[in-house]
């Protein structure tokens, strides 16, 4: 089975569940570590970040009581999801990820070449998502303690590019606008619209451009070490051919470069498993769930995937004679 096709199917099912699930009375809870946008009217599950930001907008002393317990419970549910599914949330479930992947399909169909970050730039921009994560914690705390105006409420949701877009799938256009109520709301919702624009334009030069800056990915990656999914590399079998690095939508260089680190679920990895598919060396890369290797790099399978149907070479004259 072609894993990338399987992934597309899973992503599509997840998309339908998360965006339209409410219409069929499906509810996966509102602590999901993925962009199941809470502004979608009848969604089948909600994004963790929205509730998280609201819960944080409280005066500090309140956290000593019931509020604190509520917060801990929310984080606990998030952590559970994060441990069980890791960042496969990003690669296999996130509706916003699917949209970006589909745009990439459109790009390759138009045969437009990909462009890559220089290694140094890539490294530098990686920290942006942690800064966003810190801000979406600090600003609500500031609001709750009277330091920051209420206009900054749920700041990340206001600037999140998924909020204007995902409700559109239920015909709700009300989020697709800039909120001119005050300067902060204008700045934040304006940023969201700019990000939407960026998403559509960068899709024609890059893959998963916005994911590298996503605070959800930053939050999830805190659980990398304990996640049940892992990517394992047997360094002595790896030729450092670079195939995995080229295939990686997140441009993760460690996947090729490392020969000694065993678990290669790195900060940006979305567990799409493209690297395992692109690896031509038997068993050099391996994807595991709870210690069980469910997918291994395999030279034969690699070649079958690569050249598709015309597998049989033309028969030589001698062969033709034999067949007669």
């Amino acid at each position, binding site marked *: 089975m072609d894993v990338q096709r399987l992934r597309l199917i899973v992503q599509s099912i997840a998309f339908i569940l998360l965006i339209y699930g409410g219409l069929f009375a499906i509810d996966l809870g509102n602590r999901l570590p993925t962009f199941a946008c809470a502004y979608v009217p009848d969604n089948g599950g909600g994004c963790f970040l929205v509730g998280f930001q609201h819960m944080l907008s409280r005066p500090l002393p309140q956290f000593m009581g019931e509020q604190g317990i509520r917060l801990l419970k929310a984080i606990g549910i998030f952590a559970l999801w994060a441990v069980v599914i890791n960042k496969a949330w990003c690669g296999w479930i996130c509706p916003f990820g699917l949209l970006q992947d589909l745009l990439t399909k459109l790009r*390759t169909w138009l*045969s*437009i*070449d*990909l462009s890559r970050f*220089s*290694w140094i730039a890539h490294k530098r921009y990686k920290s942006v998502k942690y800064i966003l994560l810190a801000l979406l914690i600090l600003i609500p705390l500031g609001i709750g303690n009277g330091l920051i105006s209420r206009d900054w409420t749920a700041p990340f949701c206001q600037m999140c590019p998924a909020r204007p877009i995902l409700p559109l799938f239920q015909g709700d256009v009300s989020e697709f606008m800039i909120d001119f109520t005050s300067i902060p709301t204008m700045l934040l919702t304006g940023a969201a619209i700019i990000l939407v624009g960026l998403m559509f334009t960068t899709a024609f030069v890059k893959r998963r451009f916005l994911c590298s800056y996503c605070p959800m990915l930053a939050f999830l990656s805190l659980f990398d070490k304990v996640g049940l999914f892992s990517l394992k590399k047997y*360094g*002595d*079998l*790896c*030729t*450092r*051919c*670079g*195939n995995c690095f*080229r*295939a990686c939508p997140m441009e993760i260089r460690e996947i090729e*470069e490392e*020969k000694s680190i065993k678990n290669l679920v790195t900060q940006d990895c979305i567990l799409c498993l*493209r690297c395992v598919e*692109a690896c*031509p060396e038997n068993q050099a890369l391996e994807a595991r769930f709870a210690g069980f290797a469910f997918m291994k790099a395999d*030279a*034969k399978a*690699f*070649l079958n995937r*690569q*050249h*598709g149907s*015309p*597998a049989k*070479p*033309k*028969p*030589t004259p*001698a*062969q033709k004679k034999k067949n007669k």
Partner: protein
Amino acid sequence: MDNNVNSRPAAMAGGEKKLTRKERIINKVRLHLSMSVREIFEKMEEDETRPRSMAYFDNILAKFMHEGKGVIKARAGQKVIGTYCVFVPEEIIYAAGGYPVRLCAGSHDSAEVGEDFLPDVACPMVKSEMGFAAMPILEFYQQCDMVALPASCHWKLKMGEMLEPFDDVHMLDVPRVKEAERARVYWLDEVKRFQARVEKITGKRIRRKQLREAIGMIQRAQREVHRFQELRKHSPAVVLGRDALEVLNAYFYDEAEPWTGALSELNDELEARIEQGIHVAPPRATRIMLTGSPMVFPNWKVPFIIEDLGGIIVADEFCTSQRYLSDMVSVDEGTMGDMLHAIADRYVLPCACPTFSNTIERRDRIARLVDDYQVEGVIYHVLKGCHPFDIELKIIENLLQEKGVPMLKIETDYSPEDVEQLRTRIEAFQETLSGRR
């Protein structure tokens, strides 16, 4: 050997006499080459267990007895592009409708001609290549519309200018420190420059579809190679090492497609043999791996010694053989840029050539071969004058020592003079190997 073989046209303008002398030399070299090739084939015929499907490959190399006529099957008007080493992307040549021929050479006789261009200490491979380029000994060396020469070792680096009087040369600059980002970008540019040059020679622009097909064609060849190597792991061995060397060597001159078909037949035959329990060496034959400077037909000196003495070459780490088609292009998005990038990476990043700064790829490859093929001893072949492989010898020796696998270093060239001496040393080595069991 007569020394005055300066074959620039100017030098020949002197008159009849010089011309005839050149012709005399050519005739002599052709005769010697054809004799040494005949000798090889006679010896191979003695081997009754030889797979019948080897005939296809024999057929290609036997043409060396007749000035190489018909070795390459380029169609009328198809441009022939000579390549050296393992860094020239054949996919690009095929996609542009060209016919690639790998020109790395192994003839003692042409090496003697080549001595006029190079210092004594030069490796016999470059000497042999120069000899073939300068004199019409094998036809296809004269048929090349262009030759692509990667600047790998220092001999190859300087050979470009030496070849210029005889060939249209395109130098490819292979980066040495392949971990560097700029090196990779630069090499990709080199590949694109090569593409432009090939397109100019063949007069055909490479489109997405042709490139994808060319990649697929090589991938299909690689699939058979992969099968073949799996079969070589079998113990007792079902194919001799020298035959395996021949199979890959025939790829130098053949087109990928028919060659793949022939190898697939050979693989079928070998599979059938395993079922029938036919093998080419007794179960107790010492399993030997070759590494070091490449061996090219007709330099079958060492393989013959090893296998005549009852050993069996189960694997090798030569750029002219097992390593030639082992690394694979991985097409990801299938756009032009993606495919070119994939091709560029395939020819440099996983390559274990000692002209790169690091040795880790080579160390890991050798360690893996030793394990996978149950190798009992390694013979490290150094061509006199081949510094890159000589330099890495110590590192590989240490690695093998750690793994507890004995290694024998042999330093030799293409001349038959040291055969007896080599035989004595290899015999002693194989005895120690059997003694260790």
